[in-house]
């Protein structure tokens, strides 16, 4: 790519793409033709995630996170990734532990002291944007503007360790904070339903699903269920993301495991506890080997490491379905 995507200001590195450069990518490299995009996770990650990429995703590690895609990124041993991390409780430690991620914009850094130690050791660089600031940066990217203003972050030390700027608002004369637009290289969205074209539905709250899809150079959707395009046309209010934002669709039942998929299956708390208990590189290595490197793909992981019985049990526990349809 010839597009300038990384900037520095003093000690701070930040991702920034001129809106015109992003627009030209959209014009030239994103298809608007409704063509089938159903591929395997392996194919999607190989084709659309490169070393050095900036990645965002929602919702959280424990709820509707794109866990099978994250594991595939680790399996393919991507390098030098930069993560926009809001509710990424255990992806951050895993991606850093696996040697995939070297920079993280937070948000919320994640569970446990494995990741905290990695920061102290200098294995990963962290920049502070706060959850609100990061969500706003993605909204700016989605709206095609170079920045958005906010009245938070002001007065806090986050201003010093991010590329947020203070300007004088021309309407009130008061200080206001600007955050630069973020156009990630890749957005991962794990959804309840998608069609093969990329139309996608999420049930429940989200962080910035449509924002991330609009703002990102490439979008990979993984879906619990593949449905007909006609279903979207029958109920347009339920669509979260329209097809032409999406580059690849992956069918991934239990794709949020060990987290929950609301109204589909519950969190596997035992598995999550194992993840959260990781303190050393040895423990991390063992976890990654067992759950990622030693299996060919998500299906094999589910078959051999999770098992049908466990999955049945997690489905059975998802008793609340009201509102998720």
């Amino acid at each position, binding site marked *: 790519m010839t597009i300038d995507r990384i900037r520095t200001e003093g000690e701070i590195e930040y991702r920034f793409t001129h809106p015109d450069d992003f627009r030209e990518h959209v014009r030239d490299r994103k*298809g*608007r033709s409704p063509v089938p995009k159903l591929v395997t996770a392996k194919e999607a990650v190989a084709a659309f995630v490169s070393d050095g990429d900036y990645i965002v995703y929602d919702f959280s590690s424990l709820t509707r996170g794109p866990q099978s895609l994250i594991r595939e990124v680790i399996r393919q041993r991507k390098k030098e990734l930069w993560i926009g991390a809001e509710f990424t409780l255990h992806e951050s430690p895993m991606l850093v532990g696996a040697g995939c991620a070297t920079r993280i914009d937070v948000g919320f850094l994640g569970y446990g002291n494995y990741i905290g130690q990695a920061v102290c050791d200098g294995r990963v660089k962290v920049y502070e944007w706060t959850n609100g600031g990061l969500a706003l940066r993605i909204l700016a990217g989605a709206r*095609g503007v170079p920045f958005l203003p906010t009245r938070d972050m002001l007065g806090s030390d986050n201003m010093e360790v991010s590329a947020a700027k203070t300007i004088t608002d021309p309407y009130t004369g008061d200080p206001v904070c600007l955050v630069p637009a973020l156009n990630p290289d890749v957005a991962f969205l794990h959804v309840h339903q998608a069609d093969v074209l990329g139309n996608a539905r999420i049930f429940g709250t989200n962080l910035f699903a449509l924002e991330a899809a609009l703002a990102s150079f490439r979008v990979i959707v993984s879906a619990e269920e593949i449905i007909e395009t006609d279903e979207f046309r029958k109920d*347009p209010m339920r669509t979260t993301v*329209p097809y032409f934002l999406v580059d690849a669709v992956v069918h991934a039942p239990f794709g949020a495991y060990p987290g929950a998929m609301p109204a589909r299956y519950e969190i596997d708390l035992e598995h999550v506890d194992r993840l959260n208990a990781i303190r050393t590189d040895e423990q991390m290595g063992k976890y990654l080997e067992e759950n990622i490197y030693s299996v060919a793909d998500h299906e094999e992981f589910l078959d051999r490491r999770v098992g049908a019985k466990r999955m049945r049990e997690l489905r059975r526990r998802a008793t609340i379905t009201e509102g998720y349809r």
Partner: protein
Amino acid sequence: MPRTIEFTDTEFMIAQGARLIEDGKTIFVGWGIPQVVAMLAQKLYVPNVTQLFEFGAIGPQSVLPFVRGTMGGPQNTYRSLQWLNMNWAFSFSATGYMDYGMLGALQVDPYGNINSTYLGGTFASPTRRFAGSGGGNQVASHCWKTIIVIKHEGRRFVPKVDFITSPGYLDGPGAREKAGLPRGTGPHRVVTSKALFGFDEASRKMTLLSVLRGLSVEEVVKDMAFRPLLAHEIGEIPPPTDDELRVLREEIDPDRFIIRGEKMSATA
């Protein structure tokens, strides 16, 4: 054997517009005539075009016949892929996802600047006042290729519009970029009831590309208040086809609310 086709100026304008849209692309559709153009195009030529309306209907497949006057009701937004709102709709055009924009206009100038606001006098005290931008400014600012659909009346083609409601190339090459508008955007075609215009790459000036079969260049440009550039070869535009007229008259607008107009004829 040559056959004479009879049609209205509006029907010709609509048919011409419909032939310009590419399949598998997106188009930001303005209120009124552009809606009918998009309907005709989708019905006959470009089943896989994705339309977008400014209040956030993404990919509607409007029910025929066309319901006049409105755009937001169940018929026009039928079978959309997604229903959102206005701030989201303009996010799709601002991020470069809208290939085409299609707009009507009251007045247009050699740089494709559009006036939809007022004629004569001053802004504060106009001679005649019209609706203004609506979402036209956003469409003309952000879509990659804006298509202007306008009746071929001399008084509509002026050296300088009374008010720039929606930006064309402003005052020439580089002016849009200098103003801060997105790079590489601007008016692409002007579809009239007699001819088709483009814009010269170097000067950004309106250029006559082709005329309705049977019309001379002079007949087309004579009552325009500026002289457009002429393409090296001026093409010939066939009149509305039987299919176009049938769909327009029988399926889209049986009450002739939109398609009525001045009678014209040309050889099929």
